């Protein structure tokens, strides 16, 4: 009984493999018991050409069809001497799709792990700062100063610009509503309370998360990948005191300082609009602000802002230090640090507002 034979052309390379593959698939549709591939006419070939032959052998093997090769030239035998055809054509193991619980776990587990890592880093950093000081191991001021320079000084221009523009926009929105009732002067109350209580700390924390939190995650992640963290530990230098504590303190201090700048410049923006477009005297604007705001508002806002800064610093460092999987992991940690920082800032803000406005 004769069996179908597929004859390869003189050139068996990536430009002609489609012909061989199509012919093989056509023969396989007839459900033969045995197929022969004749390579005797092949004069030149490349890896893709022989890849098509192996691919056909594997497909035949999986379908239970016997496949034979004939007419292999010496160069082809030399090529096949570098591989094990038996190993290549073994059927692949079926891919088992994980169940719903496993898939849910794969989504939830990294989130829980990330949150726990942040809590652990917070605990260890707090310990390092408090117990270390008691043991005479003080915060490294030189490294903290470098970090403050990046966090605070580096963000000064963008914070001032955002604050001035947002102050004007808030004043504009308030003015449109208040002039209906003839009480435009309350623009100052609106701008003051909004900037001091919410917009200032929140916007500062968001800018900090985008600039410094992501930088910390990427920097520490890259240091993990290149084994710099392991080298520090091996030299007896604790990454927590050498790298993390200065970054966290710098973020907290940076958030505090930048929030003060934001508040002042934001109110200047509101005042500029009130004076320039709404016809409100600067003296009246300032007097209205004095009446609307209390010292407690400032103190709570600054405490809130410092906490936001510390949270941003901790999240970036915690996620950076647990990077795995090389550059892919660094990218993931950087993105997650910004997302988790902003989420955490909103949660902390909600807790502060609840305590300040509702619980008392």
């Amino acid at each position, binding site marked *: 009984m004769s069996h179908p034979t597929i004859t390869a052309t003189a*050139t068996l*390379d*990536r*430009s002609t*493999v*489609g012909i061989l*593959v199509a012919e093989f698939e056509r023969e396989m549709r007839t459900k033969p018991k045995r197929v022969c591939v004749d390579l005797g006419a*092949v*004069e*030149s*070939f*490349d*890896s*893709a*050409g*022989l*890849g*098509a032959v*192996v*691919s056909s052998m*594997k*497909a035949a093997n999986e379908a239970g069809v016997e496949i034979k090769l004939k007419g292999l*030239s010496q*160069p*082809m035998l*030399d*090529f096949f*001497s*570098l*591989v*094990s055809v038996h*190993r*290549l054509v073994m059927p692949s193991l079926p891919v088992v799709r994980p169940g719903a619980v496993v898939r849910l776990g794969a989504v939830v587990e990294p989130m829980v792990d990330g949150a726990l890592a942040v809590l652990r880093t917070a605990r260890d950093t707090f310990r390092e700062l408090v117990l270390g000081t008691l043991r005479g191991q003080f915060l490294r001021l030189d490294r903290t100063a470098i970090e403050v320079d990046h966090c605070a000084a580096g963000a000064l221009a963008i914070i001032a610009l955002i604050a001035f523009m947002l102050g004007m926009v808030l004043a504009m929105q308030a003015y449109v509503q208040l002039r209906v009732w003839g009480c435009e002067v309350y623009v100052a109350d609106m701008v003051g309370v909004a900037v001091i209580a919410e917009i200032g700390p929140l916007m500062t924390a968001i800018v900090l998360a985008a600039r410094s939190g992501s930088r910390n995650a990427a920097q520490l992640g890259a240091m993990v990948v290149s084994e710099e963290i392991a080298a520090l530990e091996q030299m007896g230098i604790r990454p927590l005191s050498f790298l993390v504590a200065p970054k966290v303190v710098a973020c907290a201090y940076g958030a505090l300082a930048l929030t003060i700048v934001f508040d002042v410049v934001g109110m200047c923006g509101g005042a500029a609009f009130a004076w320039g477009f709404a016809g409100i005297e600067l003296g009246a604007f300032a007097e209205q602000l004095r009446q609307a705001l209390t010292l407690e508002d400032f103190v709570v806002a600054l405490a809130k802002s410092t906490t936001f800064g510390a949270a941003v610093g901790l999240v970036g460092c915690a996620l950076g230090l647990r990077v*795995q*999987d*090389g*550059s*892919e*992991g660094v990218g993931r940690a950087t993105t997650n640090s910004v997302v988790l920082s902003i989420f955490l800032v909103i949660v902390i803000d909600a807790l502060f507002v609840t305590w300040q406005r509702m619980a008392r």
Partner: protein
Amino acid sequence: MKPLSSDPAARRQTEDLVRAVALTTMFGERTVLDGVDLAVRRGEVFVIMGPSGCGKTTLLRNLCGLLPPTLGSVSVAGHDLYSASPELLQHLRLRTGLSFQGGALLGNLSVLDNVALPLRENTDLPEAVIVETARMKLDMVGLLHASMSMPSALSGGMRKRAALARAIALDPDIVYFDEPSSGLDPVTAAEVDNLIAKLNKVFGITMIVVTHDLPSAYAIADRILVLLDGKVAAMGARDHVWMDTNARLRDFIERRRPAEDSRGMDVISHLEV
């Protein structure tokens, strides 16, 4: 892409496939390569040797088109690499493979996908053929069992071998190797050397290998270029270079500290007797 010839011996001609003329590369004020001339013949294993910091990797990056030299020119198959049009440069790049020192595998792709990447991006082969071709390359370097692993799960030696499989995925005419056996145990290093020799013999691929590993260089080289302080100290057939009488070259080959290096000796002049 030009297909592999069924007769590799036919491709072993004496024509120069890669030429560098008066290559000088400076980083700021520092001259790393100083007037290097070389010619690599089609089908040979050309080894660039020298001590650490002598400019080997810089020379390799100049030759493969990653780093333009400050002065001089590099030509591949008669085309000037640094004045080529983007289309010609892309064509030349598809005919060459580069195996980086650390592997440079893409961390978000499995080992199989790393090797299949150049085939997927540069050919219109059916997916099954791409996968089988990539698996064949992985089998050649002994990594078929790790094809579904991520690069982060591989050891240093496995990464180097995966990088080699990716470098030969498109059946290049030239493969550049940056320290292929550094950091490997002697058995794995010998395996990599054998693989380079086999690929050269079976496919007639021109190999340009940068190494400071003397046994490895001697095992695989047809011709050797020795760089010392950015200059060519010797170039020629392997045994000819190995027997060269240049004093500094002998120091390097015989693993001696150069005579002008006074480390450990000049303290004597400060001793009180």
